[in-house]
């Protein structure tokens, strides 16, 4: 900090806390009061390097090292013209070469190497690429405009928020005053117990405070995108399925048209299974149980045993009618 001093009047930040160091294109610093003094006419020469300077070009020094400041300045100026982009080059190699050239120029200018030569190079480049520069400038402008608009909007919103907050605070204060007055009025004119009156007021205030503490729901991300739209369109409401009467299981019944065959239980209890070959391990592994074909054979033996060919046709006709 103590290094920050004006090279002309030797004032330091320590002695003058409001010291403002300014810098110009040459990269040499001057304090604000010296600038005022030296550039009364709007232009003059730098006390260090005697380069003619304009007052409007003075700006606040951002970096401690003035050389950096100078380089930034030069870079800004150079890049205004050397504004080609990667898309403008056919190969990566060419683009890299171009970037190197730009860096060379900036380095030369900021370190005063071959200044005349370098300036010539810049001029030549400008002449050769006049159209492209113009075009890219336009593009840049567009982009910057957009960004600026965004910033502007954000600023506006912040301003609004601040105003709202201020308003709220004002109201809160007003309310407090009102409540106090009401309390005093109550104490003055009512005939009730003073303690209980104070208590009820205190509890009222507590209640309103709690109400206020419920923060308003955030409706957007910090980036300004509203998330209410996304969340509402992200999930469709689940359609409600109308529930009819509950399903009731009715066991399948079959008319065997013959003697009733045994059922699953009978197979074991009445000993049918002991008369077929037992289920072996291999069968079990494949999910096979002897009881299934056993029952099937029995069912098929009994089914339609009462079949009567003489009446069969008549029954069919009756069925179709």
């Amino acid at each position, binding site marked *: 900090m103590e290094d920050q001093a004006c090279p002309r009047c030797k004032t330091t930040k320590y002695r003058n806390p409001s010291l403002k160091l300014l810098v110009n294109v040459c990269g040499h610093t001057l304090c604000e009061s010296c600038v005022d003094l030296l550039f009364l006419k709007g232009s003059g020469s730098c006390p260090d390097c005697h380069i003619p300077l304009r007052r409007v070009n003075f700006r606040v020094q951002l970096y401690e090292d003035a050389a950096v400041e100078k380089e930034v300045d030069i870079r800004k100026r150079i890049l205004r013209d050397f504004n080609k982009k990667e898309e403008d080059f056919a190969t990566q190699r060419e683009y890299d070469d171009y970037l190197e050239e730009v860096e060379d120029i900036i380095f030369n200018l900021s370190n005063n190497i071959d200044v005349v030569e370098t300036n010539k190079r810049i001029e030549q480049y400008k002449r050769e690429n006049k159209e492209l520069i113009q075009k890219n400038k336009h593009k840049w402008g567009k982009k910057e405009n957009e960004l600026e608009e965004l910033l502007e909007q954000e600023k506006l919103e912040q301003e609004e928020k601040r105003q709202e907050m201020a308003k709220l605070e004002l109201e809160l204060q007003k309310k407090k005053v009102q409540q106090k007055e009401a309390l005093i009025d109550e104490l003055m004119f009512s005939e009730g117990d003073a303690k209980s009156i104070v208590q009820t007021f205190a509890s009222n205030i507590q209640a309103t405070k709690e109400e206020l503490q419920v923060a308003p729901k955030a409706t957007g991300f910090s980036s300004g995108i509203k998330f209410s739209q996304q969340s509402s369109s992200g999930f469709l409401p689940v359609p409600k399925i109308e529930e009819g009467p509950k399903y009731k299981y009715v066991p399948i019944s079959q008319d065997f048209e013959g003697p009733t065959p045994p059922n699953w239980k009978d197979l074991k209890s009445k000993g049918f299974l002991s008369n077929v070959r037992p289920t072996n391990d291999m069968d079990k592994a494949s999910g096979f149980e002897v009881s299934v074909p056993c029952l099937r054979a029995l069912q*098929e033996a*009994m089914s339609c*045993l009462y*079949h009567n*060919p003489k009446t069969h046709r008549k029954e069919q006709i009756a069925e179709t009618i």
Partner: protein
Amino acid sequence: MFPVSSQKKHWLFTDEKEIAQLREQANAAYIVKHGSHMTKEKRENHFLSCQEEESLLRYWEISMKKFCKNFNPPMPKATAATSLHYFKRFYLRNSVMDYHPKYIMVTCIYLACKVEEFNVSILQFVANVNGDKEKCCNIIINNELLLMQQLDYHLTIHNPFRPVEGFLIDIRTRFPSLENPDDLRPLIDEFLEKVFSTDAVLIYAPSQIALAAILHAASSTKANLDSYVTDLLLSREQLKNIVAAVKEIRMMVKGIPATISVETMKLLEKKLEKCKNPENDPDSDIYKQRMEEMIDEDDISNNKTYAKLTHSQSECSNDKILDQIFDQSICN
């Protein structure tokens, strides 16, 4: 389940008379169609009669059984039985003169192999056929759809073999006084084989046929199953009906007429050669011509569509050119 099957609904008939009637109808329909220009006497001489058709069918049924027995890999009985079912059903609606039994026979067996999940490829199948294998392949493939259509696509067949197993399990469980029910098996199998030479499968339910087979086998070995049937299996009201059915089935099996001699068979074949429908004979010129025509028809229809397409495209391009000329004239 048999009670709700298509077999019970559509393919069980009242008696042998009804079946004979159906066959007569098929025979008559063919004669009317192909012999309208002949006198009555000439017709009788030229075409096969119903009896002649029947004896031919019986001959072919026997050769069908032989074919199935000698089939390699060995064919399950149910598959052979199913194919016989198909064969019988097919000739209820069609005359022997319209479709030669030897072609329908192989087709029936091949279809039965598929339906009964007896997995053989067609090459494996025709390896069992004597003669031209490739021709046989073509016959099967050409006739398979026809056969299914004539069967009304009722392909599931309930055979009496499983009911026999059911009865044997039941006898062993509920009627232990019969000592060795498995001794009956050879006789049962013999009976069932004979049953398929009759029309019993077109009249009675498979369980009834199975019961008839078991009772027949029991009476042949002098085993007594009467009390099983009367006391355990059936109630008194139903008894009469079933006993009658069993009796009828056994009568039918007993009454199988003797197979015709090879000489008469050859005579009949000669007669058939003259009166058969040449359109369905793969050896005839008409059949070959028809097949070619069918292929040609496909080509022709393809050509037609192609012509149509090219025509519409050319029209379209003409329109475009006209438009262009029109535009140009306006510009000028």
